[in-house]
């Protein structure tokens, strides 16, 4: 009997909200299958299973906040589940209400979607579509290979809602969006809390949207007495808002300090308060404060001539398909990962007053999101990747991070992190280490500059690489070795 537990999706994660189950009792799962969607303060993550077996029991309900490490489901052998009536046999009454939403609502699971040629819909998007009352089967995908994007779903939802309703919900949507994962693009966001949208399909129980559940918990609203206005009587955020308003008008109370759920237009008379900080901002603030308070940083920098690397890359790109084409970042990351292998003193974590070297090079990559904020997914075993493989990994990670579809395995704790701020056009990065790591490598923008080679002045593509090192774990001499190794590797790109 195995347990599927709430994974740690970041060093600072203490708990997560189980947004959706993608399996039900009796389903067989294998290692690597995406089984649930979990929301962390930073993003919504598709979480994979690390064991193979049959789901014998779901322990957590959708919408429930669960501490890291606590069991979410039990896995066992198929014989432990009565195949014909799994729910009745295995699941206590209280939990049976959480039978997977996909089945209850009749939204196609990834397999039936395969009938069309486009890539399967990710659980996060499927979830969003259901929340917004959009049938993904009717949508035209504008993403790669016809894949549905978050934008497609949101646009369809906006089209369903009438302009009047959309306008009315914008005020409500703003704070809710800020609290939700900030990975959504800055598209016209009309998360239509009040718009149902017609969604055919029978259900056996009243659905409650996670947003509604969260609002209800915050406001102390009893969901059992609410009348749902969504399709088939499902309870949406707007219903909770309405209940809150109702209570307030009956029992006049002092104006609430937080604008979070105040949707009434007259609420503008309340003294303006600063906009609510997103969970992601709060999380970055906390982590970076700890870093600067606890880690005695030292900073080093080195200018590297990228001429050989870029020549090599251009040659490769002439042979590669357009879809496989390399960017300099792929070379920089491979060189950094190999250098971290060569200088293991900088690859690991400072825990309880001592440095613990990491066995693998799990290279954290800082990705900034269009909507603001950062995500730091990790590339596992990065020193063993070829430049082409690294390029493919970066593309997938970036796409997943920006569409809010990161996998649990993308969020393993990195052993060293790279900040590639060169894309923003700055010359160099004086980084802040992500605790408990002990090093952060920063790349500025590669740029053509005058450079002396063999006594001759020429124009070369140069990049400034920096290291922020934890002085408790290493000294500048060790840091220098790392930067010099990166330089040496980039002078022989064909060997990477």
């Amino acid at each position, binding site marked *: 009997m195995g347990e599927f537990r709430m994974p740690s999706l970041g060093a600072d994660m203490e708990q997560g909200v189980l947004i959706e189950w993608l399996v039900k009792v009796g389903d067989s799962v294998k290692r690597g299958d995406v089984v649930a969607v979990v929301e962390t303060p930073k993003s919504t993550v598709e979480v994979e299973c690390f064991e193979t077996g049959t789901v014998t029991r779901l322990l957590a309900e959708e919408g429930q906040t669960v501490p890291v490490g606590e069991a979410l489901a039990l896995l066992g052998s198929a014989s432990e589940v009565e195949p014909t009536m799994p729910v009745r046999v295995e699941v206590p009454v209280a939990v049976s209400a959480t039978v997977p939403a996909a089945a209850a609502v009749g939204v196609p699971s990834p397999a039936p979607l395969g009938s069309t040629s486009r890539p399967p819909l990710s659980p996060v998007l499927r979830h969003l579509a259901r929340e917004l009352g959009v049938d993904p089967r009717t949508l035209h995908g504008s993403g790669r290979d016809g894949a549905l994007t978050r934008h497609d779903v949101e646009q369809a939802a906006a089209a369903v809602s009438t302009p009047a309703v959309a306008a009315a919900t914008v005020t409500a949507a703003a704070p809710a969006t800020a609290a939700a994962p900030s990975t959504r693009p800055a598209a016209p966001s009309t998360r239509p809390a009040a718009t149902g949208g017609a969604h055919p399909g029978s259900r056996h129980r009243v659905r409650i949207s996670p947003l509604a559940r969260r609002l209800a918990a915050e406001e102390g609203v009893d969901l059992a007495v609410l009348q749902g206005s969504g399709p088939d009587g499902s309870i949406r955020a707007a219903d909770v808002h309405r209940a809150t308003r109702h209570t307030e008008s009956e029992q006049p109370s002092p104006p609430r300090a937080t604008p979070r759920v105040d949707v009434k237009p007259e609420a503008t008379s309340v003294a303006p308060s600063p906009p609510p900080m997103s969970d992601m901002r709060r999380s970055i603030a906390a982590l970076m404060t700890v870093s600067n308070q606890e880690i005695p940083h030292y900073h080093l920098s080195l200018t590297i001539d990228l001429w050989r690397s870029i020549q090599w890359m251009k040659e490769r790109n002439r042979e590669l398909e357009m*879809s496989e*084409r390399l960017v300099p970042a792929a070379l920089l990351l491979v060189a950094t990962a190999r250098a971290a292998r060569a200088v293991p003193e900088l690859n690991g974590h400072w825990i309880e007053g001592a440095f613990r070297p990491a066995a693998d090079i799990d290279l954290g990559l800082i990705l900034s999101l269009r909507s603001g904020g950062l995500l730091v997914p990790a590339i596992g075993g990065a020193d063993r990747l070829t430049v082409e493989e690294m390029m493919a990994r970066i*593309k997938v990670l970036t796409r997943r991070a920006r569409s809010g579809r990161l996998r649990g395995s993308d969020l393993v704790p990195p052993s060293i992190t790279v900040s590639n701020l060169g894309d*923003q056009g700055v010359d160099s990065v004086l980084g802040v280490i992500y605790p408990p790591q002990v090093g952060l490598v920063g790349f500025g923008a590669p740029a053509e500059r005058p450079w002396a080679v063999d006594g001759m002045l020429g124009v070369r593509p140069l990049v400034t690489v920096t290291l922020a090192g934890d002085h408790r774990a290493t000294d500048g001499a060790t840091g220098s070795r790392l930067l010099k190794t990166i330089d040496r590797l980039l002078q022989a790109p064909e060997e990477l």
Partner: protein
Amino acid sequence: MTTTPSQGGSQTAPTAQTAQGSPRELLETTLREIVPDASLDGVSGDADLRETFELDSLDFVELVERLGKRAGFRIEDDDADQLRTINTATAFLSRGMRRTG
């Protein structure tokens, strides 16, 4: 999706023209797949695309790949300079589409 991936300009320009309209529309449509709310309206023809739409190097390589597929010809690394602004990009795309057609 109306386009099919093509390599080395096997798709003819008339097809690309009918499916995608003008080079400017092609640019805008493709851009929007990367930056969902991107619009060329009100953007100066000389403005740097990467700066205006905050495209990082991965976004840009994706833009180049998608533009090439749509327009039906291979865009080389060295052509990237030609895609710097709306004006240079639309000129480059129409030249390329005419050539393959």
